[in-house]
Each structure stands twice: as structure tokens, then as C-alpha cells.
């Protein structure tokens, strides 16, 4: 059962740069996929189109049954509620506590307080930060902040978690801690797509690896490693 289906997707930016050429891709439910490639290969564009930060110029993209290419600006939230996104720079609200940052994603749905409380603590427990619920993000280390961001992304129980270089700002040990958390989440049934530059992580995890080059999929390994082909 495919969760993501991309057919003949092309993305050309307004300045004329073609970031993605005729891309076809299928990702199944429950998969853990790395998207790798050199800088400017189109991997960021690819995942931005998945959560409709960017619109494809042509072709079709289906994410969990939603036709993303045809989704109107006003309706983007419908898609966003079905997936979670994690970034390199965490994108936390620094004036809110850890708890509030995570609860934020639930409150907009009008979920009762007790239920929010329960869900937030559960997910904070999952990322190992239950004891820091009342601290502010600035008082946390980078790895901890990223775990808060992950908690926020998954608190809704999304089918898909998109990670854009989540370990890009973190040291090696912390990166592996984050990967452990992501693997845990993946085991619970969430599909994960992760863009990364980190060779070590890709090699160690032995997951599906999609290699992009100049906007095209050049390799798609079932259980791949970060080969030297990239550089």
C-alpha cells in the first residue's frame, strides 16, 4: 500500500532553475527512507513538495490520498494535519515551554485539555523529555530541542514524518540519539522520510536510500548505504 505516489513530477522555480525533472517515486506505509544527494540536487525541493511548501510545476503527487499538486492554499492545513515535519533548526517557539510547544499542535483542533495533557506527556516520554516539560527550549541542548520538535511533529499521530536534515546541527552522539527516537517512532508504524548529509547515519541504519542527482532519482537501494557515488 503506497503512502506517497509521485508521477512525472517536475519543479521549475520562477527564476528558471529546474530543481526536479520527471520524478517518479513510490513510498509505502511504514517505510523508513533516506533521501540523499549533493547540495542542490533537489532533495529539499522534493520533500517541500510533500508537505506543500512548494507546488510542483507539473505531474501529480499523492500523499495519503490527498492530491497535493491540486491542493489550494487555503486547504493546505488538511494535508499538514496528516503529517509531521522536523527541521534542522527545530522551529520551536522560544517563548513557550516544552509542554506548550508540543500541546500547540493539538490545541488548534479543539481537543479537551485532559486529552492534550495525556497525549503530550506520552509523546514527551517517548522522546525522553517528560521531566523537562516545564522548561523553555533555550534551556535545552540542541539534541533535546530536536526531540521536542519531533514530539510536536508526532503528537497528532501522523502517518508520515518528514525530516529535513534533523541531525544537521547536532554532534555525532546526539545524532544517533535522535535516530534511535526516529527508529522507535518508525516501529510504531509511522512512515519516515529523512533528508540527510550524514554518511555515518545512513550507513548504520541500513534503510531504503534514494539518491538524487540534478533533480533525478539516480539510485534507489532497498537496504542501502551512503556510497561514494554522491560526492
Amino acid at each position, binding site marked *: 500500500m503506497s503512502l506517497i505516489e509521485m508521477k512525472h513530477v517536475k519543479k521549475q522555480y520562477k527564476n528558471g532553475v529546474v530543481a526536479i525533472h520527471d520524478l517518479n517515486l513510490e513510498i509505502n506505509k511504514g517505510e523508513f527512507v533516506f533521501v540523499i544527494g549533493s547540495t542542490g540536487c533537489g532533495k529539499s525541493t522534493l520533500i517541500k513538495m510533500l508537505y506543500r*511548501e512548494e507546488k510542483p510545476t507539473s505531474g501529480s503527487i499523492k500523499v495519503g490520498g490527498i492530491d497535493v499538486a491540486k491542493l489550494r492554499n487555503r486547504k493546505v492545513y488538511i494535508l*499538514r494535519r496528516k503529517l509531521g515535519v522536523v527541521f534542522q533548526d527545530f522551529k520551536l517557539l522560544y517563548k513557550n515551554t516544552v509542554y506548550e510547544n508540543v500541546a500547540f499542535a493539538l490545541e488548534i483542533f479543539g481537543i479537551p485539555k485532559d486529552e492534550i495533557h495525556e497525549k503530550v506527556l506520552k509523546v514527551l516520554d517517548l522522546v525522553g523529555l517528560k521531566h523537562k516539560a516545564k522548561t523553555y527550549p533555550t534551556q535545552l541542548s540542541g539534541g533535546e530541542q530536536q526531540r521536542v520538535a519531533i514530539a510536536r511533529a508526532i503528537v497528532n499521530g501522523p502517518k508520515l514524518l518528514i525530516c529535513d536534515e534533523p541531525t544537521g546541527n547536532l554532534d555525532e552522539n546526539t545524532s544517533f540519539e535522535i535516530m534511535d527516537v526516529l527508529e522507535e517512532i518508525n516501529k510504531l508504524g509511522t512512515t519516515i522520510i529523512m533528508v540527510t548529509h550524514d554518511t555515518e547515519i545512513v550507513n548504520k541504519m541500513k534503510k531504503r536510500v534514494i539518491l538524487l542527482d540534478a533533480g533525478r532519482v539516480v539510485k534507489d537501494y532497498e537496504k542501502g548505504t551512503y556510497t561514494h557515488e554522491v560526492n
Partner: protein
Amino acid sequence: MKLIRIFFRNVRDSFKSVFRNFSLSLASISCITITLVVVAISILLTTNVNNFARLIEKDVTIVTFLKLNITEEEKDKVEQEIRSMDNVDSYTFESKEEISNSMMEDSETFKSIMEQWKAEDSPIQDTFRVKVDDIKQIEKTADAISKIENVSLVKYGQGMVEQLISVFEIVKNISIGVVVALIIVTAFLIANTIKITIFSRKREIEIMRLVGASNLNIKIPFIFEGLFLGILGSIIPVVVTIYGYVTIYENFNGQLFSPFIKLIEPQPFIYYVSGLLVAIGIVVGMFGSWRAVRKYLKI
């Protein structure tokens, strides 16, 4: 139930946000405060000018002289006709006897002369004093009255009254224009100030969108925030209005320069103005926030 929860969450969050972004909120609040003080002053001025104009207009009377030696029935007929006119607000009748008596009381000279007149010689005429509803129509009404049978002469300060009316009309229109323009300028000024403050919260909006907030979800807390800013911004203008106006009123004994120019009584006037200021603050704050946040939703 869900909607109520969302509503209260929005109220709570926007309240929190006003204080968490206090320095930015302060900028918006001061902007609202300053402009509302100016709006308050112009509202107080215009309403007083209008009030003064209305008082003068009220005093304008059409004096209707009847022909000499008319019968009681003829007089009643004139009265009926005056009463049936659309623009007539009220009228009083003074018989020639009443007029002569009051004139004789006023002056000894008059008395000595008038006492020699026989009733049928007296040049004094029976008189109707007519007040009109719409002063702009006074000429027409006076004209119509003069055409009634047995009316000899109609006077209402022709020329002077028209001039006065047109001056008041101009003053009224200019002052209303100034107040409206001020309110519109305030709205955009506040929209801009809030836009600057929201710019620093672009990130917050971006994150809200990322976690699946609909545009309405995002807008509502900001609009509530605008509402709070409007209320907070109108506190000082309201205080200035209430204390300022009462102080001025008492210092001038309720009149400006002469007993002719009466100031409006402070109560309940100042409360209406205060209510209006809060309402303007709220509307303008909400409008400003709504406009400002809209810009960041075009992603």
C-alpha cells in the same frame, strides 16, 4: 463544545501573547493611545460645535404678523393653517393686547404714548411666533406662511439666518470629515504598527501552518490580540476624556466666552464619547491585526 474550547483557547493565547511580546504590544498600544487622544479631542470639539449650532438654530423664530383688526375666526383659520404645515415644530400666539402690555411695562415712554391710543387705532398686530423643525427649509416655510390669508408680514432674520446656516453646515461637514479621516488614518497606522510587530512573529505563524493550523486558526488569535490592544490603548484616552472634559466644563462654568455658547453637560456625554473611543479602539485594533496577519498567510 469544541468551538467553545477553541474560542477560550484563542482568548487565553492572545492575552498571553500581549504580555509575552510586551515591548511590541506597547508600541501598538501607544500608537492606538496617541491617535485615540486626538480622535477624542476632535469628537469633543465637533459635538460641541454641533451642539452650539443646534442651540442657535433652535432660537430662530419666524415672527408672523397678522393684519390689523381681524376677527377671532380669521385668526383661528391662520392658526389652523400654520399648524398643518410640515416643517412647523411649535408656535405661540401673542395677542396685540399682550404685546402692548409688555411693551408698556418695558418702558415709561411707550406707556405714555400707547395709553392715548384707542383700541382700533393701535398699530400693534396679533403675532404668531413659529419655530421650525428643519432650519434649512425656513425660507420655504416663511414664504408659505406669508401667503396665508390675513397674514401681513413675516420676519425671521432673512439673509443672516441663511448665512449662519451655511457656516454651520460647513463647520459640521469639515469636522465630521476630520474625525472620519482621523479614524481611517488611525486604522492604517495601527495596521502598520501591528504589521511590524507581527513580522517578528512570522516564525510563529510559519510553525502554526506547519502543524496544521488553518488560516482561520491563525488569524483568530491575532484578531483577539488586536481587540485587547484596542481596549488597552483606549484606557488613557478614556481617562483624558472623562477628567479633561469635566475639568474644562467646570473651569468655564459650562459656557465658552458668552452664555450663548453653552458646552454640552458632561454627564452622560463623556460616557458616550468614552464608549465610542473604546469601540473605535477595538474595531481599529482588530482591523489592523486582521490586515497585518493576512499578509503572512499568502504562502
